[in-house]
């Protein structure tokens, strides 16, 4: 945690309401995302007892399995959910727009819009991955094309959710944790209602509202007390259905169970929606658009890959795991860089930590030349007077302008104390910088030690290395 966030958390604790950290919204918000709540029975990982979903502010729908411990009942319930989910998820693939041209002049198309699923907490996100794995181990007699497609989509969402900055699967507790300095401990912040009540409550201090907020459940695991009641209802359902497992036969007996889960989901869904739309009303940071384009690109790749009828195994291959890890790390670095450069409040964290510095430009020479290898080359120079409480950067370290954290870096050429106090820093751009707007004398400039560029894609060698069994 940064000092800025810690300070805001302490202010929130003192004032009785969480303080907002980020000035902007750093995730894309759709007008009508799919809100999703999943419930599973205790001790049964990967089994969905019920799924409640709602599109935007539309009516909620709850699908229950009856007894998810029975594989047939579970498969039929997931099939019914897939019949609703798959068409919604796939429909975005229909409309495509030009995105870019390849070096060979080929036009690449990307979907015009991408789906967005909103869940309450990281446990639900993890559960979606388990659900995808469960479908993969179903016997062939229970698997349907709709189920296979559902598993592909859920696995895709679960895998992508590890990428910071993506907005295909929004986890509201993570979103709140990023945008606010919530004055609670990490395990407490896992409950959406608890995190949300520190932001929005009608008491004098959030601590007075915490106990009531903790009563609301978001799944996937309900409270033990509630489960004890539903255990009896499930027992009655099993007695009523006998040996029947087909959906048509068991549906008449599902009402009591559906009613239980509907009542359980209603308050949670309301809080999930209110929290989302409250955050969506904030102005989006400029970089959100670029990341949403990346979401659309990845979604396009996914649906095109899924259209080939391919399946993923239960565990990722080493190559897949490597690519995924690489992508997550890069996404995280790019997101941190972009969000800090967009948002002065987030930049404050880096200024305090020494990852960025700023000052007023004393002199600026965009046409400064110096000897190159064969001829003189243009290397712009900027000298600025460092803000008093900024940590002076070490000579030779690379920085980027916060207004343009891309491309070739600036290098710190010299750091010298000024006679009247303070320090001046001279930076040299390591390229000509024709397209770059060089800060002029008298302007404030901020330099950051991170870039928002994605690095070159790492390729694995064509042949397996000896250390991994090759020759």
């Amino acid at each position: 945690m940064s000092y800025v966030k810690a300070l805001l958390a302490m202010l929130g604790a003192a004032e009785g309401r969480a303080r907002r950290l980020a000035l902007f919204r750093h995730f894309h918000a759709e007008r009508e995302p799919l809100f999703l709540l999943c419930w599973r029975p205790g001790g049964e990982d990967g089994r969905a007892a019920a799924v409640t979903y709602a599109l935007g502010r539309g009516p909620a729908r709850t699908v229950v399995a009856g007894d998810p411990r029975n594989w047939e009942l579970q498969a039929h319930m997931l099939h019914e959910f897939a019949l609703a989910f798959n068409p919604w998820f796939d429909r975005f693939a229909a409309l495509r727009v030009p995105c870019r041209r390849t070096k060979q002049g080929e036009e690449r198309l990307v979907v015009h819009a991408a789906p967005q699923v909103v869940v309450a907490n990281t446990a639900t996100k993890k559960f979606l991955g388990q659900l995808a794995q469960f479908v993969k181990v179903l016997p062939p007699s229970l698997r349907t094309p709709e189920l296979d497609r559902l598993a592909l989509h859920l696995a895709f969402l679960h895998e992508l959710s590890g990428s910071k900055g993506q907005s295909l699967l929004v986890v509201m507790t993570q979103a709140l944790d990023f945008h606010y300095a919530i004055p609670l401990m990490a395990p407490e912040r896992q409950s959406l209602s608890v995190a949300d009540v520190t932001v929005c409550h009608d008491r004098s201090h959030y601590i007075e509202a915490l106990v009531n907020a903790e009563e609301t459940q978001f799944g996937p695991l309900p409270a033990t007390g509630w489960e004890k009641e539903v255990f009896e209802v499930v027992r009655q359902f099993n007695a009523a259905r006998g040996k029947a497992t087909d959906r048509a036969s068991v549906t008449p007996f599902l009402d009591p169970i559906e009613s239980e889960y509907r009542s359980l989901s209603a308050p949670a869904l309301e809080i999930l929606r209110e929290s989302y739309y409250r955050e969506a009303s904030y102005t989006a940071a400029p970089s959100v658009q670029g990341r949403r384009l990346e979401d659309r690109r990845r979604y396009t790749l996914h649906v095109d890959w899924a259209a080939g009828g391919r399946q993923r195994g239960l565990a990722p291959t080493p190559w897949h795991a490597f690519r995924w890890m690489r992508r997550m790390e890069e996404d995280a670095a790019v997101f941190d860089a972009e969000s800090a450069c967009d948002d002065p409040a987030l930049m404050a964290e880096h200024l305090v930590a020494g990852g960025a510095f700023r000052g007023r430009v004393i002199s600026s020479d965009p046409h400064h030349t110096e000897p190159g290898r064969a001829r003189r080359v243009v290397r712009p120079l900027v000298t600025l007077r460092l803000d008093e409480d900024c940590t002076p950067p070490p000579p030779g370290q690379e920085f980027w302008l916060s207004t343009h954290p891309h491309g070739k870096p600036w290098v710190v050429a010299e750091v010298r104390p000024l006679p009247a106090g303070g320090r001046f820093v001279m930076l040299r751009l390591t390229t000509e910088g024709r397209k770059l707007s060089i800060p002029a004398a008298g302007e404030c400039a901020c330099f950051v030690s991170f870039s928002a560029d994605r690095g070159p894609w790492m390729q694995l060698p064509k042949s397996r290395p000896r250390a991994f069994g090759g020759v």
Partner: protein
Amino acid sequence: MYEGGELMVRTVEETLATAWRGGAPSAGNNSREVAKYVATGRCPTRGLCLAAGVSTDRLLRGTRYEVPFGQSPFAIQRGRKVEEVARANDAQAIRLRAEAEFGPFARWRVVDVAALYKKPDWEVGVRATREALGRVLEGDAVAPTLIFGAAFAYELKRRTQHYEADALLVTPRGVIYVVEIKSFPKVAGQADGQKLGEAMAQASIYVLALRELVSRLGGDPARHVSDEVLVFTPENFRLRLTSTKKDVGRRARYTEEALRLMPSVPEFERAVPRGFNFGEVADRGREESERVAPLERVACAVGTTFGPECLGNCGLFRFCRERQYRDRRLDALGPEVTNLLPGVETWDEALEHSEGRAQSGLPNVRVVADRLARARRLIDEAHASAGAGTRRVRK
């Protein structure tokens, strides 16, 4: 304690602990309670509850501090089913995995100690476990290779705690492994990290108890007791068992150290207010304020620690949380904040530093104060410069 089959005279510690417990609900003195105590960072008040054998989950029932607890009936049923699978056909499932791990077993003899007795009458189970392990250490031809429900009488600060391990496995080389049978699945070779960690924490306590027993029987714990445990779980959502072998040596050392540092009953006696007993706290016939007052007194006298590990491991979480907020202590905000601000106890003190109103002679506190002051200036500046650009826009 059980020596030579005779029940020893009740110790002074046990008498005192029983007095402290009063009419409060009992925790049962099982390994889970010890694991929870270790997990809460050796909180003295939690330790007092452990010493007195009090269930913190049930202590504050009926008050606003009550926390939900208990096990799901679905989870209990699944656990029973997994156990049935493990025990079926002379524990064939365990034998197959054990042979894959340790090589073929020349003989396979299963003893079910749990079937011999009914809790809380531990004496029979503890004796049966001692006899079985005694034969193992002697290299007896009819010694068991798998002992279900092995019972231990573990001495903790001169008080006897009873634990029941799921099973003990004796390999062909005569090394004894603690076996845990759990119902969470291992999918694609990966088990849930948190649940596996909890299983290992529990198993590490059994390893300590087993070492003590082997030592008492004249064996060499370093040679006969493995630091590794076998956790049997269903594979890929089905009921076919697979195993995970994990080294709990470091965890066992940590647990042993934590238990060694746990105050003894006489040490608690010096701090606990005279006449205190948990029965007053648990008494639902009394007003909430009357119930909580003695707990507050003993918490002040004995001390508490507060951290994220308390949630889920201690039924006094809400009670302690309210105390933290009442005293405006930084611990309420978690170690992410307290680790950043060493030497600063309350958020009022930290905020005074950020405003430059507090002076401290400690160098680390001065550094913290400078950074907080800088953070304050920057955040105020950021919010002032933001203006209308970030104001909420109704969609």
